[in-house]
């Protein structure tokens, strides 16, 4: 009996020891080439000059930021910002000076040392103070509060602000904010970029492929795990999805697998890991307030009331996308309104029939009716994700005596036409790189932003945007943001139809990869990713 008890006790002890022992199961493996497909021809290699994920996703791995959103955490927030080229940072008591202590011993890919001068030079270029200006500078508005960057020796840089801006740091953490080398021209950065990041740029064959190899001198010892990253450009969506199913690639382009396509992928490649996440890319309605009769706020209000967001979401994404105001809604979004608050905004109420009855009354008051419809061209880019909601919008506007005609605009001249105001009503897509009100509101709704496509300008809203930007208390700031949301909805400033969700898929052998859930722009360093082959 004692012997049996002893055996049982020994077995139990062994089992307990095994159960509580640290899990050694998945040690990272070095080597291998990560294969990813790219969905289109990227405009250039210079992240600072572009406003598209097409450039950020492949080229983020070439660079480092001063700080970064933690690649291991799904949600970006102030608390997930971690050091990168900056070892630490601190604010002065007035909260107008942000000082970064920089890492020493970091080298650019061409062997030159990284110093504070590079930081200064990057932000001088971003604010138009450097003679070698960026050809395009789409996020200049992010840095409008930056007075200057001063350096103290080679390893300390201070950002001097005009006024306090608590979320200033979050902009540094975006994939859109790498540090550029001072000694390399902006032109060279568009074609053969040099960074301090885990991968060195090798080759960019237009319309064909991109190649990056491991940086053996990377300042994070032991990283990256991969030997190389190879991107192949496959513009035809059917071909690239089939290629992923046939195991040609380890990872799809981010959010490239739409909800209807996801079924095909999971049924034909059942081992693939697919995650549906919001992209922080909204479908929004742009109305040219200068084009009669849309200069009449009553018509704009009627249009807002006619939109049935739920049915659009049901049709386009099988109910997966999110109804939202300007900020990404919870649970992934940090600043968006919960559904019960959102419903109180004009046009967001649940009773579509009632809203439309009110909209028809407005239209009838303006002289329109079944016998006299308002004819309008609904302009949009010639891309399905733009075209599909535009078609549904036309159908919905019919309910309020607006007869829309789809005007498909060649995708390459879309922004030029919008900037020249050569449209009345349009369907647009807007991506937000950082889940922070400063980024979204300044970029898209402030009077002086170049990316404010409809040139919506309300001085009171501008004041509120400044006010929230300076508010250190998060709850108070949220209240101001929601007030801005309410005013934007009332003014029908680029009303958000929905925030889209789509899937990103990868093969199970890809390890260490975490998909961010409230931005598609900030997690493509690939330094912690490895292949379990």
């Amino acid at each position, binding site marked *: 009996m004692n012997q049996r008890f002893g055996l049982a006790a020994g077995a139990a002890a062994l089992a307990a020891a095994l159960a509580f022992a640290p899990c050694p199961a998945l040690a990272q493996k070095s080597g291998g080439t990560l294969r990813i497909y790219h969905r289109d021809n990227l*405009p*250039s290699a210079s992240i600072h000059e572009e406003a598209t994920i097409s450039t950020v996703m492949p080229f983020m791995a070439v660079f480092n930021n001063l700080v970064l959103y933690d690649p291991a955490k799904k949600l970006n927030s102030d608390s997930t910002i971690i050091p990168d080229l900056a070892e630490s940072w601190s604010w002065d008591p007035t909260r107008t000076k942000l000082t970064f202590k920089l890492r020493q011993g970091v080298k650019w890919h061409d062997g030159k040392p990284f110093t504070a001068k590079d930081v200064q030079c990057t932000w001088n270029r971003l604010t138009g103070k450097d003679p070698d200006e960026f050809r395009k500078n789409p996020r200049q508005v992010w840095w409008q509060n930056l007075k200057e960057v001063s350096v103290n020796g080679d390893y300390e840089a201070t950002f001097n602000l005009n006024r306090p801006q608590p979320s200033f740091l979050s902009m540094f953490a975006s994939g859109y904010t790498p540090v550029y080398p001072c000694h390399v021209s902006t032109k060279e950065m568009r074609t053969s970029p040099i960074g301090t990041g885990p991968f060195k740029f090798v080759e960019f064959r237009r319309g064909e492929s991109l190649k990056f190899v491991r940086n053996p001198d990377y300042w994070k010892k032991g990283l990256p795990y991969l030997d190389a990253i190879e991107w192949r450009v496959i513009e035809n969506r059917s071909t690239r999805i089939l290629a992923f*199913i046939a195991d040609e690639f380890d990872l799809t382009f981010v959010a490239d697998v739409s909800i209807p396509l996801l079924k095909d992928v999971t049924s034909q490649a059942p081992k693939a890991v697919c995650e549906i996440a919001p992209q922080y890319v909204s479908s929004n309605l742009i109305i040219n307030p200068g084009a009669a009769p849309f200069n009449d706020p009553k018509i704009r209000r009627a249009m807002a009331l006619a939109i049935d967001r739920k049915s659009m979401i049901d049709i386009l994404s099988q109910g997966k996308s999110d109804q939202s105001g300007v900020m990404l809604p919870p649970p992934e979004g940090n600043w968006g309104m919960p559904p019960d608050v959102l419903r109180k905004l004009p046009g967001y109420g649940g009773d579509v029939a009632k809203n439309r009855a009110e909209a028809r009354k407005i239209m009838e008051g303006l002289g329109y009716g079944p016998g006299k419809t308002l004819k309008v061209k609904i302009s949009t880019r010639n891309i399905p994700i733009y075209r599909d909601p535009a078609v549904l919008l036309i159908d919905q506007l019919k309910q309020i005596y607006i007869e829309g005609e789809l005007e498909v605009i060649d995708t390459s001249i879309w922004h030029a036409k919008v900037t020249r105001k050569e449209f009345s009503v349009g369907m647009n897509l807007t991506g937000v790189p950082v889940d922070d009100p400063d980024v979204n509101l300044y970029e898209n709704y402030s009077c002086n932003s170049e990316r404010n496509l409809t040139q919506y300008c309300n001085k009171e809203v501008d004041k509120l945007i400044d006010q929230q930007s300076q508010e250190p208390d998060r709850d108070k700031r949220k209240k101001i943001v929601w007030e801005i949301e309410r005013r934007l909805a009332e003014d029908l400033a680029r009303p958000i139809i929905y925030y889209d969700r789509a899937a990103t898929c990868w093969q199970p052998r890809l390890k260490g990869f975490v998909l961010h859930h409230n931005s598609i722009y900030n997690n493509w360093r690939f330094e912690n990713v490895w292949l379990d082959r």
Partner: protein
Amino acid sequence: MSGYLIRRFFLMLVTLAGISIVIFVMLRLVPGNITDIIFDSAGFVNPKQKQRIERELGLDQPIVTQYARWIGGLARGDLGYAYVSEKPAIREIAPRIPVTATLAGLALVFSTLFGVTLGVVSAVRQDTALDYALRIVSLSGLSLPSFWLGLLILMACVQWFGWIPIYRSTPESFWKELGLLAIPAAAVGFRSSALVMRLTRSSMLEVLRQDYVRTARAKGASERSVNYRHALANALLPVVTVVGIEAAFLIGGLIVTETVFNIPGVARFLVEAIRWRDYPIVQNLVMFIALVVVLVNFAVDMLYVALDPRIKFGN
């Protein structure tokens, strides 16, 4: 003959000069220009920066000056700089030409081999079950859109073999490249071979009813000799014309196949360059395609002489 060749050479130069003017002017008539498009990916257009880029690219110069600069460069072998990639245009264009040329060549070989052979068989076995079967195959070849056929091939390969026949990185050898391009070439060649087959069949049937074929048979020539030596040689003239036209079409007309099979060739690149209004790329590529068309036409004319001794050029 030499007089004809000289006239033909000058005619070629005039044609190319005409094409150069048409493409140069038409490109500038299309709405939107490269600076608008360069800005598109930034999500806005800044008029001041746009002006600077126009100056950088020489687009602020009068159109005649721009044309003269292009033609002058072309004469010196300088194709200029691609606006988008900011690399010499020759470096962008040159690697793509062999890819498309190989694909087009393979497709042409496929279409000629199958088209002519099956056309002859179909004509010789007129109104038999084999003839009907071949005619159905040729009809399906003509009616299947190539993008659909391409996608079907890709789906079948993935479903049955777990493998996808798309272009990967540049193959190490010519033979490997041939292997890689064989399936897309067959997809393109299928339509083309259907056309060649139908033409060969009708041309053969017409020739087989000629008096000299009857005479050959009366003289006791074998069926093989009648079909191939007497009939086919004469039936080939219209086929050569069509093959010539197909060859010219294939150099610039492979856009769908290159897209579906992800082949980095000239046609896909040309469409992309047009979308970006990358003038140096578009102008030079169109000129290249025009040159190929003119040369193929010339080659076809020469082939006429070889195939039909009755045809003479010159005085």
